[in-house]
């Protein structure tokens, strides 16, 4: 039996000024699968995630997340997902526990339940003994683990991971993927991830979509991508599909507009 779709995107377009970050893309993510969104810098991955997570409004196109529209039903969509952003989004001046507690209150979790869950999750990501320390004393890997734990407090149906292993050591990366894989198998959670580490995507993703210049250029399982491009590794397939040019990515939509303006005048 075909599994139902938990994310549906149809003809999605997002423009910043006259720069098109996402150019008419369509895709589905099935319930319970690990879906990897791969692409070079500036391909439109983060913009797509921001639209799916209600942070940006699309220019046109249809989006459904857990059966709701991120524009019309933003609160229902927000209840459905947890997210680990590309860059940290913790409050450094609060302790690990306080950051977790803060999240639990924002997601309307009963204080008794949340206390239990927070302690349980902190134990899972091996931060129990540091829970009363200020986050500013944490290393990058510890912050990442804390963010993942935080994203799971409200038992999301979908977990968005935007380059979650960037800058982490192999131990932490291994730990995270194992943990996330566990969550999908045990809880039936769906994972939508982006990463630049092809071997990670190869290992964890059920299906992959490759996006470049705002368009999806290839999709399917890792095996299919490798077979279609006659490549031995996913990285080779990726490079064959997206080329070897090094991309320039601006820091913010505004910079992107400026960058575009500069290219235009040249």
């Amino acid at each position, binding site marked *: 039996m075909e599994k139902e779709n938990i994310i549906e995107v149809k003809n999605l377009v997002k423009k910043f000024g006259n720069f098109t970050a996402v150019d008419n893309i369509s895709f589905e993510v099935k319930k319970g699968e690990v879906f990897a969104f791969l692409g070079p810098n500036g391909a439109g991955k983060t913009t797509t995630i921001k639209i799916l997570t209600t*942070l940006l409004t699309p220019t046109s196109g249809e989006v459904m997340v857990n059966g709701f529209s991120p524009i019309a039903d933003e*609160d229902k969509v927000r209840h459905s997902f947890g997210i680990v952003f590309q860059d*940290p*989004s913790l409050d450094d001046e609060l302790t690990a526990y306080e950051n977790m507690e803060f999240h639990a209150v*924002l997601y309307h979790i009963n204080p008794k339940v949340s206390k239990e869950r927070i302690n349980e999750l902190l134990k899972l990501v091996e931060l129990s003994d540091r829970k009363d320390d200020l986050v500013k004393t944490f290393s990058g890997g510890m912050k990442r683990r804390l963010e993942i734990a935080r994203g799971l407090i409200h038992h999301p149906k979908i977990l968005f991971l935007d380059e979650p292993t960037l800058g982490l050591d192999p131990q932490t990366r291994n730990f995270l993927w194992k943990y996330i894989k566990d969550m999908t198998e045990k809880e039936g959670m769906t994972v939508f991830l982006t990463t630049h580490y092809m071997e990670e995507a190869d290992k964890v993703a059920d299906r992959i979509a490759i996006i470049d210049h705002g368009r999806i250029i290839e999709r399917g399982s890792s095996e299919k991508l490798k077979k279609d491009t006659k490549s031995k590794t996913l990285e080779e397939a990726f490079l064959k599909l997206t080329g070897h040019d090094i991309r320039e990515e601006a820091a913010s939509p*505004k910079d992107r507009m400026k960058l575009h303006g500069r290219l235009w005048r040249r």
Partner: protein
Amino acid sequence: MGTIYIMWLRELKRFWRSKARIIGSLAQPILFLVALGFGLGPIFKQAGDGNYIQFLAPGIIGMSILFSAMFMGIQVIWDRQFGFLKETLVAPVSRYRIMLGRTLGGATVASIQGILVLLISLLIGFRPQNLAMMPIAFVFMFLIAILFTALGTAIASRLEDMQAFQLIINFVIMPLFFLSGALFPIDTLPQTFKIIIGLNPLSYGIDGLRTALTGITHLGLLLDVSVLASLTLIVTLIGSYLFSKIEV
């Protein structure tokens, strides 16, 4: 209620944990009180206006609240840069509540700063006239604090980074302070100057504070409270709207 409370609590915890910031933010008001209070005091007395410290202290309390409140509001930019803003923006709660919680938290912190400056001014000779008016003084402190935290939030909601920060200090905060009657009596000023001061919301806050603390008034308590309260409401509404439209 949970959202507003936790946002409020966050501001207080952050404030309490940064002792350096608390001390740092007291340095400037103390300098103003001492340098201006003792420096211009004799001239003020000669001009027949009485004790300058008595006149100045409410103005400096208002100043410290203005500064802290604007900084608390502008913190939105820091939260944007350090990423924490996103955590609150993807949460399934109304952004109006988040903005309100932030503003009340920032305003509470700014009011505490104001109270600290009041205590310090007592040490250097300021004497409130009527203790029964103290609650009214606190109302004015809190109104000033909410108004300018909300204004800071509104401005910061439209800014991407800290580059505009100097502009805000020089073109918003400084004029608000110097053109508010915090430092000098407004009764005998030239007409044009009086109008400018009349257009500055802080003037009403400081006049109200001064009335409550010393009994000296220029504009009248009723006018002060009505202007300040209605502006606070309007600016908070505008701030909430701009905050709710933030895209990151």
